[in-house]
């Protein structure tokens, strides 16, 4: 009997430890985020660093986001056609593809793909800089690394991600259009017309707001994990994995919360 009690106690203790750890991480992540944002708002700024990050996070993510959207839009058209056919509603394909891409799939799938690419590379870069004392060296050269490294990345990702999502929306709708016309015998003019008719401005802006939040999360998790990286190559490896996993989960969780907030049922 005492053995069973000990087992339960151990189990409860491990849950308690996990909860405490979670609270601690949430606290330090929040402080880190506030510190980073405060440096985005206060001079001195480093415009060259910002431009470099914009190029790296925004421009070089275009192929990934574009391909993701293209194939998703195509698959979406096929699925909605198959689903719609069950109650003779095949004609909804263009509008549902457009609304689905713009409101949900463009920002979320784009965000997840960019998380894999950018969170990982930011975490690896900052982690290596931590391990090789480059972050310490910045301090000794009177440069605050939160301002020089973290702030430009946060701002660049927050601004680049909506632009990427917008490009993704357009390409995704084009993917749906291509499949609709080539495989599902839609009339091209009718397809385009239906796409536009039911799409509202709110659909687009809400998707872009989501994307901005996801962009912030992507850079934040990359910076946070990299900045606090443990020692050695092992520490950097762990930081990189943690950055991608935590950014992806936070994107999905915040997507639900944002959807509730933007489109209350």
């Amino acid at each position, binding site marked *: 009997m005492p053995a069973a009690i000990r087992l339960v106690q151990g189990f409860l203790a491990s849950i308690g430890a996990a909860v405490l750890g979670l609270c601690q991480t949430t606290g330090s992540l929040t402080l880190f985020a506030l510190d980073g944002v405060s440096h985005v708002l206060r001079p*001195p700024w480093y415009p060259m660093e910002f431009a470099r990050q914009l190029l790296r996070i925004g421009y070089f993510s275009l192929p990934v986001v574009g391909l993701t959207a293209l194939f998703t839009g195509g698959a979406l058209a096929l699925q909605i056609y198959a689903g719609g056919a069950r109650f003779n509603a095949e004609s909804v394909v263009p509008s549902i593809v457009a609304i689905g891409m713009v409101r949900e799939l463009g920002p979320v799938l784009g965000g997840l793909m960019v998380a894999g690419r950018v969170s990982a590379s930011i975490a690896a870069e900052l982690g290596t*800089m931590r391990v*090789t004392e*480059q972050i*310490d*060296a910045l*301090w*000794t*050269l009177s440069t*605050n690394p939160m301002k020089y490294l973290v702030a430009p990345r946060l701002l660049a990702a927050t601004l680049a991600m909506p632009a990427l999502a917008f490009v993704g929306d357009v390409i995704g709708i084009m993917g749906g259009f291509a499949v609709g016309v080539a495989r599902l015998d839609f009339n091209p003019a009718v397809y385009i017309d239906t796409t536009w008719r039911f799409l509202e401005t709110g659909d687009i802006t809400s998707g872009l707001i989501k994307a901005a939040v996801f962009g912030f999360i992507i850079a934040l998790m990359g910076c946070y994990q990299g900045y606090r990286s443990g020692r050695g190559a092992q520490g950097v490896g762990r930081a990189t994995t943690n950055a991608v996993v935590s950014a992806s989960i936070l994107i999905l969780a915040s997507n639900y919360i944002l959807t509730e907030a933007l489109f209350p049922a």
Partner: protein
Amino acid sequence: MIALSGVAKAFGSKRVLAGVDLSVARGESLVIIGGSGTGKSVTLKCVLGLIVPDAGRILVDGQDAVAARGRAREAMLDKFGMLFQGGALFDSMLVWENVAFRLLRGQNRLGRAEARETAIEKLKRVGLTAETADLFPAELSGGMQKRVGLARAIATTPEIIFFDEPTTGLDPIMADVINDLIREIVVEMGATAMTITHDMTSVRKIADRVAMLHEGVIQWAGPVGEIDTTENPYVHQFVNGLPDGPIAAVR
């Protein structure tokens, strides 16, 4: 100018510093000696505020170095130059941009052409040619990276300079050049210097005073002239590289 009292630091259960008392006067060159892993680098990083000590006080020019935050901390660090043990060069920047990092930023920033010229001049002082200026740090050997780090540390002629193992990884001739350079910086620029080294030739060349760190405390500190005559068993064993003594060879 710099005064440490009772500085203690542990990483997890591992106690590295256990009450370090040390002071360096203005314009003085202090050398810290001690076995590897005894916390010499940690001591310097505590003064720079890169590691927060668990206990103790650190004063730089009478100012509390540990409590300094924000602008006050940046103003304090403006006085410092630091050569890191591993060089800590920014690998995304060219060599000259590394050396000129501080010259290119801040209130009194120089234009790129002027900063580049100053950087090349500093590179020459540490025995590197102008051609190295346009390479990336990864293209240099370890010893060359170290010298670039040195050039970066002295680029703005700071009041206080820390050198973490400046001659490790250099050939004896280049090591001698660097020793002379450090001595020159202290004498000519009137800088206050703290240097970590294992190299007894360096110690004799660079130091005004020597401090020996072992088991988390300063075991001995005194003028460089006394390192050969002191009765202190730690210093005696270290200076003469003896296998027997209070410092166990296997730890």
